[in-house]
């Protein structure tokens, strides 16, 4: 009986119009990508993503690069990823991209067009999430790659040696993984917040405060944070300065795959709850 129920369930899943849903999703992603990447309103996200690259480019063109400076610049790049991209760039970038996907459409009074079209709401939400993630990944991923390439290209042979025969490529892979997981993690959280609250900004600022004080919290509470998982993936850890360095609670080092799995689980849970929420989403434009 139990086996029959399971097989019936599997059969019902298989007969769903997956191809049609995939087609709808692709179309929605294309529309959203165009709005996220090629609109005038998206210019500030380019600024957020590429400003460190621009500073590094100035450094490459302006300063001299003795081989002794390689380790210092490597630490600086790690600091840029750890403190700028994760805490500020990816955070505010994802806040802008993902809170606009649903709440922005409500403010612009255009979400009802989507909701009235024959598309499942879960497909709509997942397509929007996919489009936001692709936009954020394209921008921040390419910014990290460009910053990395500029920084080590300036050192000539020593830089190439560090990248191709040393730990360089591994570090680049780790940075890209961190940025990817950061975009997905913050994206999922902000997408949910934008559906839960009429004004998601106070909640987002609380998330920012939570992420900022997270290193000084007990290890159990540190697990409820995107940045704490990403910290374990850093190839080079740059210690905090000032009073935060004294208060920082050192947690047990976590294996990379555990950190990835932990964060992916968090993302799946948040997305599943978002799908549940969007089923019951009602628009009252008069209160927006």
């Amino acid at each position, binding site marked *: 009986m139990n086996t029959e129920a399971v097989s019936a369930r599997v059969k019902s899943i298989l007969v769903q119009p997956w191809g049609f849903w995939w087609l709808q999703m692709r179309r929605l992603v294309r529309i959203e990508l165009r709005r996220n990447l090629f609109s005038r309103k998206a210019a500030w996200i380019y600024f*957020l993503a590429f*400003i*460190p690259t621009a*500073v*590094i480019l*100035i*450094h490459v063109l*302006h*300063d001299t690069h003795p081989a002794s400076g390689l380790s210092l*610049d490597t630490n*600086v790049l790690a*600091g*840029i990823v750890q*403190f*700028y991209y994760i*805490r*500020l*760039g990816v955070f*505010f970038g994802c*806040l*802008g991209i993902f*809170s606009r996907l649903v*709440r922005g459409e409500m*403010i612009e009074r255009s979400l009802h067009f989507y909701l009235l079209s024959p598309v499942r709401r879960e497909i709509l939400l997942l397509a929007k999430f996919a489009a936001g993630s692709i936009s954020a990944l394209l921008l921040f991923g390419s910014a990290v790659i460009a910053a990395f390439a500029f920084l080590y290209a300036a050192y000539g042979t020593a830089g190439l040696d560090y990248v191709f025969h040393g730990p360089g490529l591994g570090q680049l892979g780790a940075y890209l993984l961190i940025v990817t997981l950061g975009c997905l993690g913050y994206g999922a959280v902000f997408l949910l917040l934008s559906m839960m609250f009429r*004004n*998601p*900004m*106070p909640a*987002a*600022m609380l998330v*920012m405060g939570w992420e900022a004080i997270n290193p000084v919290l007990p290890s159990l509470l540190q697990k409820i944070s995107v940045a704490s998982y990403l910290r374990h993936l850093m190839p080079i850890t740059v210690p905090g300065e*000032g009073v935060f360095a004294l208060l920082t609670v050192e947690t047990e080092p976590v294996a990379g795959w555990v950190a990835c799995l932990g964060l992916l689980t968090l993302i799946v849970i948040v997305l599943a709850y978002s799908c549940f929420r969007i089923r019951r989403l009602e628009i009252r434009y008069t209160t927006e």
Partner: protein
Amino acid sequence: MSVYRHEYRAYTGKLTPLWTRVRVVARYALGEAWSSRITVGLFTFSMLPVVVYLIGIFLANNALARVLVMQGNGVLEVNSGYFLRVLSTQCWFAVVMTAWIAPRLVSFDLADNALPILLSHPISRFRFVLGKFIALFLCLSLVTWVPGLLLFAYQGYSCSKPWMGANLRIVTGLLLGALLWIGFLSMLGLALSSWVKWRTVAIGVIFAAVFVPAGVGGIITAILRTRWGYLLNLPVMMTQLWQRFLGAPPTMRDDMRLPTSAIALVLATVCLICVAMLNARIRAREVVRG
């Protein structure tokens, strides 16, 4: 409908003094700011550190309480460093208050195309902005220099030695530092809110305007090995300024400290940009799309 009565004349009665017109805008802006429960909640929350600092002053001046609470361990000294911490804490709460209140004062008027109606009243654009500025400035005063001065007065009252006269630099520094900061924040908050149509977005933009340049400044300092990157870092810049105002010991290395003139120049430049932004946006025009 044809107008056939030509008996209209300019008003010749008593005019309201100019300064009271600003007061009307400020009064309504204050009402708008405090109509939100979140504003009240933020204000209450921002008073919690003041209570902690108050207890600190009480302990510092009461030997018996110090023995009972701290069991004789540690020395609690109320000096310029203590009031620097008070000022820093309260000024960062002021950023949160600005991010919440400033968009409420401006974005609603802009989003609802209300500016043409408001500016058709006998009030100039300057006085309209001044009214909003005064409202925001007063709100921020309540969380910055007002509690700071109260703490200073309490320390002067509870200290057994003549303390106030010997530490006048602390109170002038505290007042000057707080006034400068909240004036700057008010300008920044109003200017950014006037450029962002939606209040929701404006809150995030104000936070980003404070913290993202700080990150960029940090990158410039680290990559280009120069202290001038800190000129984009408002937290570092203001902390250095407050230290000098209060006469507190510096926390940064000598080669990383910024000249006061450079800090003043940056603050003045940002304020001028804010004035230009407000001048461009606060106009009696209506945007119609479609």
